[in-house]
Each structure stands twice: as C-alpha cells, then as structure tokens.
C-alpha cells in the first residue's frame, strides 16, 4: 500500500523500493525536443515541450533543486496510462502492454491503470518583461498539485476542467524557473478510460502589466438576426485595472476582413454592441466563423490581447417546430463519444481531435454528446470549424458515487468552481447548443438532489442565459410535481412535470424509446431528444424523430469505439438456447459499441446508419456464419456480427444471411452474374431487406432501385490469398512539429489490393526520419498488448500507425513487414 492508502501498480512498487528517481521503462520513442529560448511577452505561448516525467511517487519532487536529469524527457500532451507496464515476471499472463488483469477499474477502464506521476519543466523568462505570468492547463487527470520554484500554487481535482495559476509572486529573479506538477489517478475513479497525467495542452501567458483581460471573460452573443443583419453583444472582463486604459475590439471574418471595430474606456466589465450586415451565419452545413480580437491598451501601447473565435447563430427550441438553427428546423443526428483516442490514449493532440470530428462528420453526424465530461478546446474548435453541434456535459455524477473513488468525493467542494470554469471557458464555441448538468445522476430525485438540480440549472443560466440546460435522464424520472412561480423556469410555473425534469429546458432521454409517445401526450410542453440509445433501435428511433417536431434528435451510444466499458457491444455465438450473454471480462478492453471502430474504420452499424441518414443509398452486409449448434446473441449495445464480405470459410451451398440496407423501394441480388432474388422494400421494412443466399465463391452484387431507377449498387467479392501489406497515409496538412500527427493505415491485401476481411497477420512497422511512432495497434476489442512496440496483429485486415512529428521539418519513411507477405513503404514530408 502506498502512503495514500491506495494500492500501487508494480512499476510504482519497483521505483519506491529502490528509492531513486528513475524511469521504469525506456520510452518507446524518447522525446527529442527541448525548449531553451527565453519566454517573452504574449498570451497562449505553447508550454508543451521539454518536460521531465517520472511515473510513481517520491519525496522532494516538488523541490526546485532536485536533480531530475535521470527522468524521462517528453513533450505534452502525455497520457501515461496508455504506456507499457513492466511485465509481471511471476505472472506473465497478467500484464500485456498497458493492460493489467488486476486493474482496479477492470472492464470500466479497459484493464488499464492509473497511479501517480510527476512532471517538471525548467523555463527561462526574459527578465524585466513580465507584469504577470500565468500558467494555464487545459486538463490534468487528475487531482493535481502544482509548484513554481518550490512554492505550491494550487490543487485542482477535476480531471477534465481547465485551470490556471498566477506564477508572478514566486518567479525567480534571474529568470530561471521550475514548474512541478503531481498528478494522481488513484483507485477506481472512472467508469471509462480516463487516461493519466497532463493529457491536454499547457500554455503560458505573459502580460506586460498586472492589468489584463480575464482569461475567460470575453462573452460574445448573437442577440438577433433581422434581414441578414446580426446584432451582437460582446462583454469583456478586465482585472487589476488602473485608470486611463482603453478596451479595443475588432471583429474579422474568416478572410481577415474587418467587419467592426470599436473602443471604450476600460472598466471591470465592458459591454459593446455591434451589427454585422449580411452576416455569414454558423450552422452545421455552413460553419462560418468570425474572430473578435480584444485588446487592452494604454494609449497606443497594447498591454494584452486575446482572440475569440465565434459564430453568429440563433438556436431555439419549441414543441411546434422542434429545434431550429437560424430559423431552420434541424434534427440532431447525434452520437455519444468518449474522449480517448484509442491506441494513443487520451492525449488530446489537436490532430487527433480534428480526426475524430472528421470521421463522425463524414458519416452524417451533425451532433455529438461528449460523454460525460467537458472535452478539450481542440475538440470544440474542430466542432466549430466542421459544423458539428455539441451538448456540453459537465458531470456524470453529483454527490452520490458511481465508482468508489470518483468525483463525488470532490463534488461538494468543487462543483460551483468547476461549473463556472466550464461555462465561461467554453461559451463562445458556436458548436455548443446546450449545457448538460448531468448524466444518469444517482440521487437526483431525493429532496437534496432535486434542489441541487435547481442550483445547477440556475447556475448555468446565470453564467450563460442564451443556451438551454439539459440532462440525460434514464429510468424513472421521479414523481409528477408542480413547481412554484419562484422556482420555475420562465413560463413553466404551474405546469406539471417529473421531479427529474422540472427544471430542465430540454429533456434528454436515455434508452426510453418506448416512453416517447406516452410522455409527449402526458407532458406536451416538453422538447426532448434521445440522449443515449441502443444502436439496434436506430431505424425505429429515426422514423419517430423525423415525424415528431417535439423530438429533436438522437444520440446513439456510441458513435465511435472507446477504451473502457469493455465489451458492452458486439455479439457472441453461444450454444442454442443460452438465455443470456455473459458479461465481458479480460481480455476485453474496448466497449465495441461504436459505429466506428477504435482506429477509425466503419463497423456494420455505421454502414446501416449511412443509409439511415442518406450518406449512402445502399449497403450490404453478410452475417458471420454461426458455428454449428450456436446462435448469435447481441449485447445490449450490440449489433450483429456482419461484414461487407463475400469471403467466408464455409462449404459452398451453406445458407448465409445477407442484409441489404437501402432507402430504395426494391433490391435485387445477383450471385456470379445471375439474379437470385428481388425484394420490394416498403416502409414497414425499415430500410432493411433480409435474404438467405447459398454461399458460392465469386461476386455477390446488390442493386437498389427507387421508382424503377437504380440508386445504388454494391459488390462483395471473394478475396484471394493474403499477398502483401499495404500502407496508406490519411490526408494531412503535413505540418511539422510535435503536435503534428500523421495516421498511416496498414492493411493486409490480396494480389489485387483487396483487403483481407479476416486478415490477422502480425505486422511490424518502423519509422525513420522526421517523425516517430506514437502508437501502432488494431481495433480488436480483445487485443491486449503494447501500442508502443511497433508490432501488432491486424484485425479484420487492418491496423493503424500514428506518427508524431519531430521538432524539425523533414522526410518521414514508414515501412511495414509481415511474415510471408510483400513489404510496404510510404514516405511523406513534414513541414
């Protein structure tokens, strides 16, 4: 046991035992960057490079004089939970890569572990320049303490909210300073994979004088849109204000043209109103953005400056028209997602956040519900830029726990501060359409829970009265009650609602499709949406959503696979008559309920959703043949094990279940050039046509028609023997630097370049040049093993390498080798 009373992982024990500050395992790819340049004036100066890291505990690690030269050097963002653990020599099967069978979180955290970690960074500040210096962390998981030059400057417990500290009083006179950060991810504190450490960006703000703009004090609101003219209000908060300063604001469009400019005498809170003619509005289809540059000036000298991107849009909800964006009725085509990035863990690289949003947008999603935490600024920026609406959720629990060591232990002390930070730091993101105060909250209908709901909802409304407040309600929503005039939402006094929903503006329903109609009849004032839903109900849900204005959308659980909550999706072949599918256990590591798999490829449910949302006119999948004597049972969040494949290891003639999803009214099937079936599709078929087709190697072709016109065609072929590994780089802007990620897929293909549907060859990748391998792995939900070794077995023919840029421009060469297959190589230039 550690001094904290929590069991330590083996790595910590090893380090503690020898009592030295040493790195337990050599880094798979040691960081090369160092930041030696003296830091001068400026906001948002990246502070990610050249940190020293020690995984484990120890004394005196906060001391400025500590010799940390033996510590590992790395660049942020960093997540130690995804890094390899020291193998357990006495129990070799226990630990595989970052996965430990004895993890405290077990399936909740995907058998990963937390522990404690220390970060230290030395930096030089230009002497006599700074009036104030602040360090800004976007997120540290979790319960972190921070020191500057040996002085403790703060503790922050919430692992998902940003925080900042004033370093000024403790800065060294000679300009040489040291920051130390201690992060603790202890016990069983999350229901999903959280990651550990400084997993988001860190910034340094150096302002010339104590007078400064409030970090999150600029609020930009679209008040109205009339005849193309947008009326905008901007509030800017200023601190430590001496007389004689001016606040200047300039609004530019995406092309950099100035749309408005204005100055006012600086006060603690400056309000400016402006109009933009022919405003280019933000919407999911046209996500136009503007930027407000706010400056604090003394005469012609600028003391502080901040850029705030924002969108001009009006979001409204009512039961008659549902949700409107700038007056246009809009359904939330949504997906719930967790914040990890699979094989790179939770490290919130901008490129990883952008890729996740791009993957979802390409599949027709126009909305996400980041579950059940505030996501990174980079993620929200990606949603702003790509046009994906966000329900920003603050909490997964309040006072009552879901796991023994979770945030409930801090909630009472911290919720006001955390909620304030969440709303103020994120309120200018055009993509955020609602604030959620909680997900499936235990105790919400007890008297104290009802009062807390009211407090949370009204705290949000005080901070941002322009957005609706919601929560995700599962199960029983409390008894029917009437709220008083004083306590009610505007216009809601005297109406009846349930105690869980009475103080919400828009109601989120988790898994309650069967209640929708009855609840609408009983509570006609409600606007609601499916805040979580089962994938297999997607067609029934969407039919109801499209015809019901009061039902404004749905968020499937989930849009993308994630680490943790292992094995809640998928299916299993079990002896016929088995009543129930058993719970998943080791070696399940990912949830496997996503439309998109852990490395970004479409799964069967995603193909079906493509048809549901009009991304595709036709998709075809074949159910994996059940082993003799078995039948397929789905997990609650599961989907049948279907593949768009006509390559199956069965005898010719074996009947196979073929499923064609289409928005057409007729489907025809051809096998090896001969038409074998034609099926009419009616509304009662819910866009699905089932066929039973005797297997014969060759080509299965499905053709969809509407009104006699072909609208889609899909061809599944029997693939040849594995012949080669193929590397392909995803599109990237190819910038250099330690934040730059390049995704390279590794595929097992036949001689014609077709992916082997069941390809599971072990592939070894190596990287040379101006990049390093950050991770390599597959989407296999049971693939315990290292993501850092450069070796992984393909799963369903695919694996993924993530290449991190170096601190200099140059060529990167990636090679892949698999026994018995032709090698592959790709090269690209960064910078």
């Amino acid at each position, binding site marked *: 046991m550690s001094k904290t009373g929590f069991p330590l992982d083996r790595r910590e024990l090893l380090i503690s035992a020898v009592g030295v500050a040493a790195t337990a395992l050599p880094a798979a790819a040691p960081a090369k960057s160092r930041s030696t340049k003296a830091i001068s004036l400026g906001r948002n100066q990246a502070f990610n490079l050249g940190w020293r890291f020690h995984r484990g505990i120890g004394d005196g690690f906060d001391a400025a004089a500590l010799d940390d030269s033996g510590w590992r050097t790395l660049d942020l963002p960093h997540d130690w939970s995804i890094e390899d653990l020291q193998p357990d020599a006495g129990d070799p099967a226990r630990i595989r890569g970052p996965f430990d069978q004895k993890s405290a979180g077990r399936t909740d955290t995907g058998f990963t572990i937390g522990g404690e970690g220390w970060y230290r960074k030395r930096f030089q500040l230009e002497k006599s320049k700074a009036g104030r210096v602040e360090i800004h962390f976007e997120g540290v998981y979790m319960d972190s303490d921070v020191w500057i030059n040996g002085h403790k400057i703060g503790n922050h417990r919430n692992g998902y909210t940003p925080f900042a500290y004033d370093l000024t009083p403790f800065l060294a006179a000679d300009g040489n300073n040291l920051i130390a950060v201690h992060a603790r991810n202890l016990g069983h504190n999350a229901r999903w994979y959280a990651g550990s450490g400084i997993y988001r960006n860190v910034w340094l703000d150096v302002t010339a004088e104590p007078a400064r703009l409030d970090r999150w004090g600029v609020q930009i609101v679209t008040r109205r849109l009339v005849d193309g003219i947008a009326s905008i209000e901007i509030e800017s908060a200023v601190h430590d204000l001496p007389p004689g300063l001016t606040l200047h604001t300039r609004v530019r469009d995406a092309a950099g043209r100035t749309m408005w400019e204005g100055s006012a005498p600086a006060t603690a809170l400056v309000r400016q109103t402006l109009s933009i003619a022919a405003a280019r509005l933000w919407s999911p289809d046209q996500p136009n953005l503007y930027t407000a540059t706010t400056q604090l000036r003394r005469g012609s000298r600028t003391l502080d400056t901040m850029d705030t991107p924002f969108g001009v849009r009006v979001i409204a909800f009512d039961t008659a028209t549902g949700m409107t964006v700038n007056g246009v009725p809009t359904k939330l085509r949504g997906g719930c997602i967790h914040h990890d990035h699979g094989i790179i863990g939770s490290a919130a690289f901008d490129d990883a956040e952008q890729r996740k949003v791009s993957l979802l947008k390409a599949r027709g999603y126009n909305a996400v519900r980041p579950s059940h935490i505030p996501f990174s600024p980079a993620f929200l920026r990606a949603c702003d830029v790509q046009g994906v609406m966000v329900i920003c959720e603050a909490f997964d629990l309040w006072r009552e726990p879901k796991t023994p060591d979770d945030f409930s232990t801090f909630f009472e002390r911290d919720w006001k501060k955390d909620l304030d930070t969440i709303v103020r730091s994120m309120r200018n993101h055009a993509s955020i359409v609602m604030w959620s105060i909680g997900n499936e909250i235990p105790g919400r209908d007890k008297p104290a829970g009802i009062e807390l709901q009211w407090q949370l909802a009204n705290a949000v409304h005080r901070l941002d009265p322009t957005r609706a407040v919601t929560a995700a309600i599962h199960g029983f929503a*409390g008894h029917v009650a009437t709220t008083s005039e004083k306590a009610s939402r505007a216009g809601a006094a005297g109406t009846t609602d349930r105690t869980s929903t009475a103080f919400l503006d828009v109601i989120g329903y988790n898994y309650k499709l069967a209640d929708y109609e009855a609840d609408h009849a009983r509570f006609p004032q409600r606007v609601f949406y499916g805040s979580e839903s089962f994938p297999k109900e997607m067609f029934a849900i969407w039919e109801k959503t499209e015809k019901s204005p009061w039902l404004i959308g749905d968020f499937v659980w989930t849009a993308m696979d994630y680490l943790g909550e292992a094995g809640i999706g998928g299916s299993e072949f079990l002896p016929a008559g088995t009543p129930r599918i058993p719970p998943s256990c080791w070696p399940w590591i990912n949830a496997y309920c996503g439309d998109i798999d852990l490395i970004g490829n479409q799964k069967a449910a995603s193909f079906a959703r493509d048809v549901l949302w009009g991304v595709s006119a036709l998709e075809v999948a074949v159910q994996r043949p059940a082993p003799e004597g078995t039948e397929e049972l789905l997990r609650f969040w599961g989907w049948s094990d279907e593949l768009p494949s006509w390559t199956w290891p069965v005898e010719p003639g074996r009947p196979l279940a073929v499923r064609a999803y289409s928005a057409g009214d007729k489907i025809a099937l051809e096998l090896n050039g001969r038409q074998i079936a034609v099926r009419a599709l009616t509304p009662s078929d819910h866009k699905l046509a089932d066929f039973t087709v005797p297997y014969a190697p060759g080509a299965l072709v499905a053709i969809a028609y509407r009104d006699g016109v072909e609208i889609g065609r899909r061809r599944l072929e029997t693939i040849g023997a594995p012949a080669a590994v193929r590397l392909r780089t995803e599109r990237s802007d190819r910038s250099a630097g330690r934040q730059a990620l390049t995704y390279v897929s590794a595929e097992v293909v036949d001689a014609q370049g077709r992916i082997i549907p069941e390809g599971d060859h072990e592939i070894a990748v190596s990287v040379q040049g101006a990049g390093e391998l950050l991770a390599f792995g597959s989407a296999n939900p049971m693939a315990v093993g290292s993501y850092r070794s450069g070796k992984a077995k393909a799963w369903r023919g695919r694996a993924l390498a993530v290449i991190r840029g170096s601190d200099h421009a140059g060529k990167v060469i990636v090679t892949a080798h698999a026994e018995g297959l032709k090698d592959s190589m790709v090269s690209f230039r960064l910078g």
Partner: protein
Amino acid sequence: METPIYPPAAAYEAPVVRPYVLSADGCSVAELMANPAAWAVMLKYMPSIGFITQIPETKKLLDNMTVVDFAVFGPPVDPKTLATINAELAQIPSTGAAR
C-alpha cells in the same frame, strides 16, 4: 429572430409532488424497498428482484429505475403479473412526497 433567453429562476422552492399510488412501473425500486409492505408484494411476485437489488452494479441505480426498467436487463415482466402487482400496491398508502 431573437436569441431565446433562459433567465435564472428567483429562488428555490421544492416542487409539490402530486398524490400518486404505488406501482411497479411508477415508483423507483428504492421507494418500494423503503416501504416494507410494498416490497413484500414485489418479492412475492418477482422474487428475482431481491437478487437484482443486491448486485453492487445495480445498487447505484435503485433510485432511478423502476422494476420494469430493470426488466430490460433480465426477464421481462409480463403484463398480467404487472397488473396484479400494481393492484396490490395500489392498496398500500404512499408517502405522497418526493423521496
């Protein structure tokens, strides 16, 4: 068009719960468990619910789930049994206030 405004409410006052009768699909499991007479009815007709409520993973859900909600994760409650349970529960006085 105007951006809707959601002004904060003036002050907290507890909602007034309307009178209701106990039922398996209209009360949380926790409320029924807290009422010995009601819980005896549940155990008489659905003995498995006694087991389900002892599972650590489900304990945190008892406030927010009805017996029928739990049936999603186990054997479904047939309508006839539900009607019988509800008829007996309706004879038991409820507290008439939010838990």
